[in-house]
């Protein structure tokens, strides 16, 4: 079991931990993207991400939610529009971490190796190539893996881990970047409900620590339980952007059909 605080949605006072909450973390303005002239995958999206929020993007397959995530994660370059990332947050070293749908873990390397990979962006090339990571980095990895209940499994290779454990390794790797924002694509859609609950509870704990999460999903139930803010996408556009409580679940389901 993961050792986390009981589930609770942070209220306004809880969110005011950093003193930077009046600033957005990230602002995307007028984003356009298309894959090889096959129509537009993302059409003129405007978006601001605030610190300490769990935002979920709901949409059918092909609605552009993964593309939007990849644009925000700097994996795809927008055809038009720009993304600003605001510094000054407590953990701004490398502000955005990205977790793909299949998690993208290196399967025949260990939990610890995969976690340490999160530090590649700020570890010297030759040290890391030889497999030597600085003491602080190793310390961070130990702390994060212990928090996520994975320290005992640090020498296990990924293909020996369960689905929930792999999910946590992916979170650990993302946390090693010391992010202010974690982008996660279809994060818990392949997990059983109990494990999904564990992982999302952990996500909420992270959010209370000031990290924002942007998670794509097609699971309406998940949104109503865990999101502070809901974005619904359809055909590359944002058609809803508000608290999930302001839209009846039936209407969400209707939009997903």
């Amino acid at each position, binding site marked *: 079991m993961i050792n986390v605080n009981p589930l609770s949605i942070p209220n306004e006072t809880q969110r005011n931990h950093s003193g930077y909450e009046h600033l957005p973390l990230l602002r995307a303005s007028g984003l356009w993207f298309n894959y090889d002239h096959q129509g537009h995958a993302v059409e003129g999206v405007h978006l601001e991400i605030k610190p300490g929020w769990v935002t979920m993007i709901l949409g059918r397959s092909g609605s552009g939610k993964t593309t939007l995530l990849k644009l925000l*994660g700097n*994996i795809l370059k927008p055809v038009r529009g720009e993304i600003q990332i605001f510094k000054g947050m407590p953990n701004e070293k490398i502000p955005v971490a990205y977790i793909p*749908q299949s998690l993208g*873990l290196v*399967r*025949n*390397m260990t939990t610890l190796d995969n976690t340490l*990979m999160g530090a590649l962006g700020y570890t010297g090339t030759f040290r890391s190539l030889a497999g030597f990571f600085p003491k602080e980095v190793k310390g961070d990895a130990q702390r994060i893996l212990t928090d996520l209940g994975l320290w005992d499994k640090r020498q296990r290779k990924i293909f020996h881990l369960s689905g929930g454990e792999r999910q946590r390794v992916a979170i650990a790797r993302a946390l090693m970047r010391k992010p202010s924002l974690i982008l996660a694509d279809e994060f818990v859609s392949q997990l059983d409900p109990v494990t999904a609950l564990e992982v999302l509870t952990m996500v909420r704990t992270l959010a209370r620590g000031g990290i924002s999460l942007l998670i794509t999903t097609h699971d309406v139930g998940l949104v109503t339980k865990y999101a502070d803010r809901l974005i619904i996408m359809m055909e590359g556009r944002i058609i809803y952007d508000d608290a999930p409580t302001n839209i009846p679940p039936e209407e969400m389901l209707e939009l997903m059909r």
Partner: protein
Amino acid sequence: MKMRKLSFEVVGLGLVIVLNFVFLFEMNLLDCAQWLSALKRMVIFAGDLFPPRWDILPTVGPALWETIKISFCGTSLGFVLSVPLAFGATTVLFHRKIAYVIRFLLGGIRTIPSILWGVLFVVAFGFGASAGTLGIAFYTVGYLAKLYYEAFEAVDHEVVEAVRATGCNRLQLFRFAILPESANTIISQIFFMFEYNIRSSTIMGFVGAGGIGYYLLGYLQMLQYQHLLTALLATLLVVMMIDYLSLKLRSWVVVAVPKS
């Protein structure tokens, strides 16, 4: 629609069969008299092969050992050179223009058979095992680098994206995502290449590039068929032993990684 597809396949197969008959006829291989006289000559030749001359083993043994050394060092050297070339030929890591220039170069290396590389290096380094080793190494580079860059390209793009998203550079991406994800292919292809090279290095001696081939050709030209049979039997034994050893080693080294 189904009918048309079926008839297309039948026509294709028919064409292949007809072409084979035409070409075989041109080569006199459909002539029964030709086959009979060939058979007669083969029987006479087979008689000349026996009995084997075991007393030449002390001569053939060291030459065979040299053949093993040629393919061992040639494979190793080829491997060492092929990894950086495959690294540069991977479009996931480098711009297409750079990758394609390297691929073109590798294609060029592959067009020249190892025996011709052997001739080239005999010209440069003189007769002996050094020429054979370099010849084998060059051929190995052409093949291994191609097999490797194809394996590197086939690494799950989400793994590449996720590791790249950590802000790492090309070398780090290669070391932490692409190499470990394609480790099994890398290792099993080395063994495959070594087995293959043992066979090609047996004929390196034909052009004076060292090893058993020198004796094989010599015995053949001097019509010493009993010597030839002995050398061939020894070569066969060694090749089979190495194949077996390599198979055992490969299954021991390569770990099965479940797909999911």
